[in-house]
């Protein structure tokens, strides 16, 4: 790794850490802004004064803010996200037990979006102005615009209720892969539709731009087959903006994923957060949100760094090293 690349890596790492710290600060400060006394806010009106007092002592809520902040940071760094006041379980355990389910959903959705979106985009770019191109343009906007949970509801109505092709709700029986897979189809499709449209459009635009570049002209001038030019050369160039978008996409999908999980009654971070929010279980909310943020930010970092694997200009620094001619 060259010096420039190392410097880039470090600066991205620092930014990432800063962002995570900022998020932690934000989440923590929310508890301090809570109107009224923190215990009632966190426990809800059901707490007896006795319980509240013990709770305050246990959680150290009576100590000055900066000490609480320090403790909070310390805890998070060691992986302790606190205790769920209602069930007594560790928040970390709760979050980690449902996180995989949400991540699988999100990644599958993106995977599907790439699988379908990229070829569609290439087709639209190479068949510009055709019927398919126009249809794709319109439907992709349609899918991008409509919220995923609305799509989820429609798919639910059509495929589960009216046509009865797919099972309706839940994540399926433990250990039965096919059952779980079948029940994942609709949620994954709901989430991915918007991204299929988005990626298809992005790929189309990038491809068109790339296909007009001089270096593609060179390839054509040397008689390289249109297939080679499109799929080996142009595609690689067009990938770069797409990958940028994918990194952000995983994070952006976490919001809709929450809603889709609820529509399909699947366990996952969404369910967890929703239940916690409705029962005013703030430690769980805080823990879950923090994990989500960290996952999002880390994925962004990985994607950013993986650029260098694809674009050699970044890997070896952006300055060209001129040597003896």
């Amino acid at each position, binding site marked *: 790794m060259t010096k420039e690349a190392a410097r880039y890596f470090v600066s991205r790492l620092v930014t990432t850490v800063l962002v995570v710290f900022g998020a932690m600060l934000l989440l923590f400060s929310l508890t301090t802004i809570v109107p009224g006394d923190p215990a009632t806010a966190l426990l809800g009106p059901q707490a007896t004064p006795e319980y509240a007092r013990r709770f305050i002592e246990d959680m150290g809520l009576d100590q000055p803010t900066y000490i609480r902040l320090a403790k909070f940071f310390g805890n998070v760094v060691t992986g302790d996200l606190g205790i769920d006041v209602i069930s007594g379980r560790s928040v970390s355990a709760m979050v980690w037990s449902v996180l995989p389910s949400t991540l699988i959903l999100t990644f599958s959705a993106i995977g599907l979006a790439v699988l379908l979106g990229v070829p569609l985009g290439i087709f639209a770019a190479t068949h510009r102005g055709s019927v398919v191109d126009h249809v794709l343009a319109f439907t992709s906007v349609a899918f991008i615009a409509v*919220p995923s949970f609305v799509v989820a*509801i429609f798919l639910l109505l059509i495929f589960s209720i009216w046509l009865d092709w797919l099972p309706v709700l839940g994540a399926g029986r433990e250990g039965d892969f096919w059952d779980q897979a079948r029940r994942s189809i609709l949620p994954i499709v709901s989430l991915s539709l918007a991204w299929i449209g988005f990626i298809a459009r992005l790929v189309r635009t990038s491809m068109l731009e790339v296909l007009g570049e001089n270096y593609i002209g060179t390839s054509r001038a040397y008689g390289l087959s249109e297939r080679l030019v499109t799929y080996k050369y142009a595609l690689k160039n067009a990938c770069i903006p797409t990958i940028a978008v994918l990194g952000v996409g995983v994070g952006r999908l976490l919001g809709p994923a929450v809603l889709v999980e609820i529509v399909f009654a699947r366990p996952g971070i969404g369910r967890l957060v929703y239940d916690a929010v409705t029962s005013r279980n703030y430690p769980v909310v805080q823990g879950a949100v923090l994990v989500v943020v960290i996952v*999002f930010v880390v994925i962004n970092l990985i994607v950013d760094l993986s650029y260098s694997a694809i674009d050699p200009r970044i890997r070896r620094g952006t300055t060209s090293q001129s040597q003896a001619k």
Partner: protein
Amino acid sequence: MNALREALVVLRRVCVTFAGGTGFIIVLAVLAFALFAPWIAPQDPDRLDVLHRFAGPSAEHWLGSDQLGRDLFSRIVFGASVAMAVALTAIAIALSTGTLLGVLAAFLPPRSERLILILFDVILSFPNLVLALAIVAVFGPSTTIVVAVAAITLAPNFGRVARAQTLTLRNAPFLEAERILGASGWRIVVHHVLPNILGPLIVLASMDIPIVITIEAGLSFLGLGVRPPLASWGVLIQDGYQFLSDSWIPVVVSSLTLAIATLGFTLFGESLRDAVDPRIGRER
């Protein structure tokens, strides 16, 4: 005024395309519903008529009635008001605070600028619904919270755009001339910087409308958004979803409304962006 004429030219360019024209019509319809709801809605949206729950479409209830016998069509019309009120308020707040911070960031020394940028990054690092949930968990659901969350989520992007635009302007010769003439910083910003950066900000604002509508609908769908008696489309969808086994009409109708509205605003926003962006001739 010159600006008005320019706006009309852009509008014409938008409406000429199929996508833009369709979007514009939908936008107008939604705005009309929102503004003139009391006159358009045939009935009081909160009027209960429990004897006629889940009624199908009829002369009395154009789109049928919901689980409490309330007229669905009227509720949808008033839902438009809620959606628009929330969206426009949130965007107004986001636009002003974001632009202020962004322009400020462009003029401040690098240390302070970096701080502002990190603030933007932190906010952007939260998937917006998740941030909303965190805030609702602390403060409890309310319409104000929805507006606040939407505004917070959108402000950083306005900030970034404002900053980028201001930076390109900062070294423009006419600004230098003004400075030499002794104009104060404030005057420069208000009279010269703002009008020039307004364009991309307005485009961004119009493209953000469907995003806010979606955030609000999502939160309301979870029951964490607007509180009754206000009924937004999200609430209608949740109601319809809960009572799916009794009738599929409410959920379909309200979902379709939300879908069409977001589609329309998105089409319009994108058309607007294309009409304003000079580069557009190249691709299509």
